[in-house]
């Protein structure tokens, strides 16, 4: 038995997150809002579809946030709740949500850092509620796939890596 716990993400969670992020994008004029979990997995993307590889992006985002957590500790802060990476045209703003996931905002010069920050604050509060609910509803501990899943998955492994 695995010592790791899994968590599940339901259709209704996705809907709630989409509604919140859509409102955020409208009010902040940002291009894209994403949710990445702390282990490096993409959870949701709303707004303009990014042209980059989302899997790689999610993994690097989690690493970025974790590395900065360590830096924060070194200077005597428990964490940095948010990070800002400024580019010439494109910038990104990252904010912690309930210490579980990261909100990533991509924006350009159609808006300002000030406006994005202002709107992020409210959005983080709303999303925290959603994720708190998700992680406390009880089925977040062990998720089980239906019977037959493992057998079929093993067949796929054989195909991919050779029997």
């Amino acid at each position, binding site marked *: *038995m*695995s*010592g*790791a*716990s*899994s*968590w*599940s*993400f*339901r*259709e209704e*969670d*996705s*809907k709630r997150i989409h509604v919140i992020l859509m409102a955020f994008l409208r009010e902040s004029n940002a291009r894209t809002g994403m949710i990445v*979990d*702390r*282990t*490096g*997995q993409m*959870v*949701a993307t709303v707004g303009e579809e990014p042209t980059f*590889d989302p*899997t*790689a992006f999610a*993994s*690097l985002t*989690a*690493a970025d946030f*974790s*590395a900065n957590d*360590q830096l924060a500790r070194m200077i005597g802060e428990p964490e940095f709740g948010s990070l800002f990476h400024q580019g010439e045209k494109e910038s990104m703003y990252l904010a912690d949500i309930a210490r579980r996931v990261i909100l990533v905002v991509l924006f350009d010069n159609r808006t300002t850092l000030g406006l994005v920050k202002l709107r992020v604050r409210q959005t983080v509060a709303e999303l925290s509620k959603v994720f708190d609910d998700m992680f406390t509803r009880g089925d977040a501990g062990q*998720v*089980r*796939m*239906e*019977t*037959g*899943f*493992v057998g*079929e*998955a*093993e067949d*796929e*492994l*054989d*195909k*991919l*890596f*050779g029997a």
Partner: protein
Amino acid sequence: MSMINYASREINCKLVYYGPGLGGKTTNLEFVFNKVAPNARGKLISLATETERTLFFDFLPVDLGTIRGFKTRFHLYTVPGQVYYNASRKLILKGVDGVVFVADSQIERMEANIEAMQNLYDNLSQHGFNITALPFVMQYNKRDLPNAATIQELQAALNPGWPVEDPARQRVTPDPYHEGENLIEEVGGQWIERAPYFEAVAMNGDGVFDTLKAVSKLVLKSLGTA
């Protein structure tokens, strides 16, 4: 911590290649990257120094395809081996679903192997994990070198077996990968379990897929109904 996303119908699992510096972890991922069909894998991302030593991690996503309606993907990570990068190693273990320990078979690297194994135990326990409860596979790499230790020596030093407390599991369980050997058996009145092990020459790809397949199966089993 595998994530099952019912909204996007995706399952993501995290596999970490651990072990001493220069043992061949990055080489494992490079081989997988080069041999798996391009439509079944993403980019290989390496956060490395100019001298190509892994600085933070290597990362490679591999798609298993759609199983029972779920797009199933493994995220392969390696950790940097150098002693002073422990902060990086700890971060990468966050949410791990399965571990491959890549040992360097060279007799001169025995001490480094043992140190890395101890470090894995320590870091996992700080995340609240116990290696004996996690899908875990050993890889003895660099079997091609003349100064390689014997498998018996490596097993004794790195995979001597941990006690099996659960009476239901105290029965002889053959090692499916090595005829005549057991994964669970009674030794001197004590039931012990060893991790499955594989010999490898990662440079040529020998043993790379066998190792990956074995740990992947263990992870998938842990997702399924017991």
